[in-house]
Structure formats: structure tokens, C-alpha cells
């Protein structure tokens, strides 16, 4: 039975819709409890606020990365696209283009990079790893060209203050950046759970051949997935700039690994076909809180990587064990 209904059964849609992020949430709760015991500073408003601001841009990218992973691929170029979008906005705004238009252009840079990735992976059938790795280096190279290896700040021109408000302002004590992130997450989660377009991504990720035979345009689906990761990275780049007011040669470095590992910790499968946006977001929160706790506990910087890696593995083991019990 190679129709969509058959596929749906095979996929066991219940898997997608079930609260898979439950086990990660339990890990998160244990961690929160642990943190509150360690230092009263952890639950202070200031700490929660700055931690949330810190993961907002990565969280926005994690939404799209979830779909890329679900489709059976991943995107290594998100960090560099973020940086390229940031520096493009600075260069345009400093040369006299109104900041609003420059900001839109920054998002467009993301769309364009994503489209190129998507076209090459979907239609030319290139490997996602090497294509996005190539894009990562190309974009980072352009950043080096535009920043001359250093950093470029936004000139204080008309509109820049309003633009900076998105990244650094607060509404009723709540950071605007976090609000933007929450809006994106809620929308992203609903779209991924409910829309038929997103469902096609799950079909492609579970079994590409069957999906193709059942009439899904897999090439187009793949192209759209990478266009989305590019676009959200572009948006994250503009938001990062509005927070810092400066783009540097290293803006966005390493973001791809943080986002991919967060998604995997949050239950998104590296082999495709499985995962939720909510899971990936919980993963991002989990990783940020681990780093936060390590700094609060004054753990030596040389040990921090080791401990982060260990907790990552423990979280995945816990997830795997609880999954096995459930089935």
C-alpha cells in the first residue's frame, strides 16, 4: 500500500503527536531543582531573564533545525548565515540605507543562502552535510571579507535606537527578544504539529522513496526545509545585531552544533522522521541552563566542556531508556 494513508499508518502518527518531550522535561525539572538547591541566584529574575535572552536566537534557529533533522538531513551553515545576515545589515545601514530596509535585506540574505542549500540538496541531490558545510565556509568567508576580520558597529543614525529596542528593550520588564522567540516557537510548534506541509517533511524523513511514490514532491519539500533554516538563521542574525549593535567576524560561530545537539537532546531523531519543535526548544533551554549552572557553581572553564558533554550523553541515555519502557 503506497498511498498516503498507508504511510500514515506506517509512520504511526501517534509517535509524532505524543508528548515525546516528556522525558526531557523530567531531566529539565531535575536540573532546575538541583540548580535551586545550589544557589539562590539561579531563580533570580535577572538570571532567568539573561539566560532566556541568551538562548532566544538559537531557539529560533532550533525550530527550523527540527524540520531539517526530521527530513533526514541537517544544516551546518546556520551559524555562518546568522553572522552574514548581521554583517550585511551593518554594512547597508552604515552606507545610508534605512535600518528597516537593511534589516529586511538581512533576512533576505538568509532566504537566499537557504534557497541555494535547498536547491542543491533537493534538486541536484547533493549530500546535505557537504553542501551546508560548503555554505558555512562561504558565508564565514564573506563575513571575514566584510568585517576585515574584526568587528563593525552600527552608526547611531535615525531609527537605530528603535531597531536596537527589539534586541535589547523590555516590555513590562519582559525582554522583547524573548517575546519574539516565544511567538516564533508557539507558531513553529503548531505549524509542525498540524500542517500538512510539515507532515510531508515527516514522510520524506521516514522513507523518502515511499514518500516520492505516494506523490509527494520530495525535492520541493527538501528545498523548502533548507530555505526555512536559512530564513530563520537570517532573522536570528538581524535579532542578534539588534541586541549587540555590532557584528564581528565570529558572530554565530558554533551555533550549528549547539542547535543540533539541543534538538537531539530534545528527542529529535538524527536519522529523520521523528521530533517536535517543543522538544528542540526544551533541549535548547536544557543546554543553556547547564552552562548557567556551571558558571554559577564556578566550575573551572577547562572542565566545563567535559561536563556539558557528559550531561548531554546522560540526557540521551535517559531519553532512550524511557522510550524503550514506553514501547
Amino acid at each position, binding site marked *: 500500500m503506497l498511498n498516503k494513508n498507508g504511510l500514515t499508518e506506517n509512520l504511526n502518527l501517534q509517535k509524532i503527536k505524543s508528548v515525546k518531550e516528556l522525558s526531557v522535561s523530567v531531566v529539565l525539572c531535575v536540573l532546575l531543582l538541583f540548580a535551586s538547591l545550589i*544557589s539562590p*541566584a*539561579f531563580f*533570580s529574575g*535577572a*538570571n532567568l*531573564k*539573561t*539566560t532566556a*535572552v*541568551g*538562548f532566544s*536566537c*538559537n531557539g529560533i534557529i532550533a525550530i527550523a533545525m527540527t524540520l531539517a533533522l526530521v527530513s533526514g538531513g541537517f544544516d551546518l551553515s546556520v551559524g555562518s548565515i546568522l*553572522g552574514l545576515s548581521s554583517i550585511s545589515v551593518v554594512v547597508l545601514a552604515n552606507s545610508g540605507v534605512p535600518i528597516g530596509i537593511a534589516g529586511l535585506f538581512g533576512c533576505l540574505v538568509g532566504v537566499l543562502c537557504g534557497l541555494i542549500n535547498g536547491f542543491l540538496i533537493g534538486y541536484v541531490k547533493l549530500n546535505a552535510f557537504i553542501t551546508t558545510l560548503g555554505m558555512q565556509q562561504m558565508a564565514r*568567508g564573506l563575513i*571575514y571579507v566584510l*568585517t*576585515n*576580520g*574584526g*568587528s*563593525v*558597529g552600527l552608526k547611531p543614525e535615525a531609527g537605530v535606537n528603535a531597531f536596537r529596542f527589539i534586541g*535589547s528593550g523590555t516590555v513590562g520588564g519582559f525582554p522583547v527578544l524573548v517575546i519574539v522567540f516565544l511567538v516564533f516557537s508557539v507558531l513553529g510548534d503548531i505549524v509542525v504539529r498540524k500542517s500538512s506541509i510539515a507532515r510531508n517533511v515527516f514522510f520524506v524523513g521516514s522513507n523518502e522513496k515511499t514518500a516520492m511514490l505516494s506523490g509527494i514532491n520530495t525535492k520541493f519539500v527538501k528545498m523548502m526545509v533548507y530555505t526555512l533554516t536559512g530564513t530563520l538563521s537570517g532573522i536570528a542574525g538581524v535579532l*542578534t545585531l539588534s*541586541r*549587540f549593535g*555590532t557584528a*564581528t*567576524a*565570529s*558572530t*554565530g*560561530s*558554533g*551555533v550549528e552544533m549547539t542547535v543540533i545537539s539541543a534538538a537531539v537532546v530534545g528527542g529529535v531523531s538524527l536519522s529523520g522522521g521523528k521530533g517536535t519543535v517543543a522538544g528542540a526548544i526544551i533541549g535548547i533551554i536544557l543546554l*543553556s541552563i547547564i*552552562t*548557567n549552572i556551571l*558558571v*554559577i557553581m*564556578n566550575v*573551572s*572553564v*577547562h572542565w*566545563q*566542556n567535559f561536563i556539558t558533554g557528559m550531561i548531554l550523553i546522560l540526557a540521551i541515555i535517559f531519553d532512550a531508556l524511557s522510550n524503550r519502557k514506553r514501547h
Partner: protein
Amino acid sequence: MKLRKLVAVIPALCLVFSMVACSSRNTAKQVSSAESAQSSSDHTLAGITTASSGQTYYMVTFLSGYSFWTECWRGFKDAADLLGVNAKYGGATDYDVNSAVTSLQQIIALKPTAMAVTCMDASAYKEPINSAITSGIPVVTFDSDSPNSNRTTFIGTSNYAAGVAAANYIAKKLSGKGRVACLTRTGQSNINERIQGFIQTIAEKYPGIKMVQVVDAGNDENEAATNISSLLAKDSNINYIFAGLQQAVLGTETALSESGLKGKIKIVGFDTDKTTLDSIKNGTVEATLSQSPYAEGYWSMIYLYMLANQQCIKSSDGWYKKGFPSLPQTCDSGCTIVTAQNVDLFYTDQSK
């Protein structure tokens, strides 16, 4: 099948022939330029520069393209232009010892007249530098040294000394009493050295100053800001933060302004990027350290020129080969504290 083999063999043969041809041509050129330089009886600068025209000097870095190197290269190129020789800039673009050394060896294979090298790792660079010198290419190191190699001179200020300077500056400002924190990046030896200089000076020289915490600056300004915010949530009773690298300066500025501590905690940064200089002007950063990258590049080129055109110095016949001491082993390019008082001096034409 035979055709296929032939197709595979032809490019390989071409490669071998071209390598042989190139190396013999380069060697010939090398010998002839050295001979012409040495046989030149004209000891005036004009005579030497005529003899040296056509020489090619390399500046080799790791993490090529980084803004600090761009400034070194500006100095290197200016000195080369003054002397009428060719200057080239090369080196790996990533932060990986293996690719940095490979890239260095590839440049050595090009047989440049002489080369200035900054060492990502002191011991990993020793062999390649020594092999370059054995094959007749004089080498100086700049910014980061390989002290056990046979390089003639190191031009720069040690990162450790820069960290010491930062500690002394802050201690003076605090009159020897207060609380400080600093940001480092794990796994990067030059930054680690300056942070070690900072921490050890505070610990040994200033008992009244407490080192609250060393925080990792992460990969970019977002990680630096997040980590410093975590520290501030726990303990904001800090007088100074020493941000040992540029992205950490930006991250710290943002973290302080987001925590409402802007102005209460002072920042001392590192390097003289335009944005850091701007921050000093508008008061968000109190001071930064400059390791004089232009001077490092400029004097590297001058020293290399002296080594490649040995008739410039008449200390002893054939002094370079005999190892007769004629150039300083180290040349301190200086480490300057940049504050609001002298910040204008550090804006270059490029950064304006």
C-alpha cells in the same frame, strides 16, 4: 582499461614534472639573488635595494584574516614597499595546528627570500621553522614565539606580559583593593597566556584584590554575554572585568547593560578593534591593551631584510651563517594601555 590507466598517469606525471621544474627554478632564483646580494660591493642603501629588488618576503599567520593580523600585514607591507621588495601574506584560515603547520610548510616549499611567522603552538612550529632555516630561508617570529626553534629574532610582546600589564593597570585603579573577574577562551594558547599573566599577577602581587571567577568567552559574543550574565546573577559585587579577547569585550558590554550594571562594573578589554575604541570613547569600556600589531609587522619585515641582505650589517664577514650575534634575539614591540586620553591615536585609516 589501459586508456583509463593512462589518463590517471598523465596528470600525475605532469604534477611531478612541474614540481621538479618549479623547485629547480626557485632554487636557481634563490641562489642568484643571494649571490647578487652578496657579491654587490655597493654598501650604500641605494646599492643594496637595487640588488634586493625582486626578493619575495612572506608573513605567515594562523587564523588568517583576523583583524589583528590585518594590522600586522599593513606594517609588513609598508616596510616592504619602502625597501622595494615583494611582500606576500599567507597561512591557514582556521584555528587548527595541523592545517597551520601544513600551510607553513607549503609556503616554505615556495622558497621565499625570508619569512616572518607567528606560531600557533611553540613546539609544533619548531621543526618547520628549523627546516626553513636549513634550506636557506631566514625566519623571524612575531606576536607568538617558538623560543626553542632556530629563528633569529622574536618581535612582539609576550601575551603573558600583556596580562601582567592589565593586572597592574586595574590594581593601580583600585589602589590594590577590590574584586575582579576575567574572560578567557579555552584551548587558545595566546589568550590563555595573557589570562595566566593576569591571574598570577593579581594572586602574587595584590593580596587585596580578589579574583572572583574566570569565565569562558565561548565561540561568539552571545556565549560570552550569556556566561558573564550567569556570573553577575550570582555575584555582581565586582569592580573590574578583564575581557581577554575582542568578542568578550562586546559580550561583557551587552551583559552589563542588560543587567543594569553598566558603569558600575568597569571593563578592560584587549586589542584595538574600531568597536572597542568607540566603546572607550563613549565610556562603556574603560581601557584596552594594544600589542602594537603594526609595529610587529613593520619591524619583522625590516629584520628579515637585514637577514636576507646580510651586507647591510658588517659586524663580521658571513655573520649570519657563523651565527655571530648581530640582531637582537627579542624585540619588544611594546604593550600600551589605551584609555580615553590616548584613544584617538589608535584609530587607523582603515578603522575610521
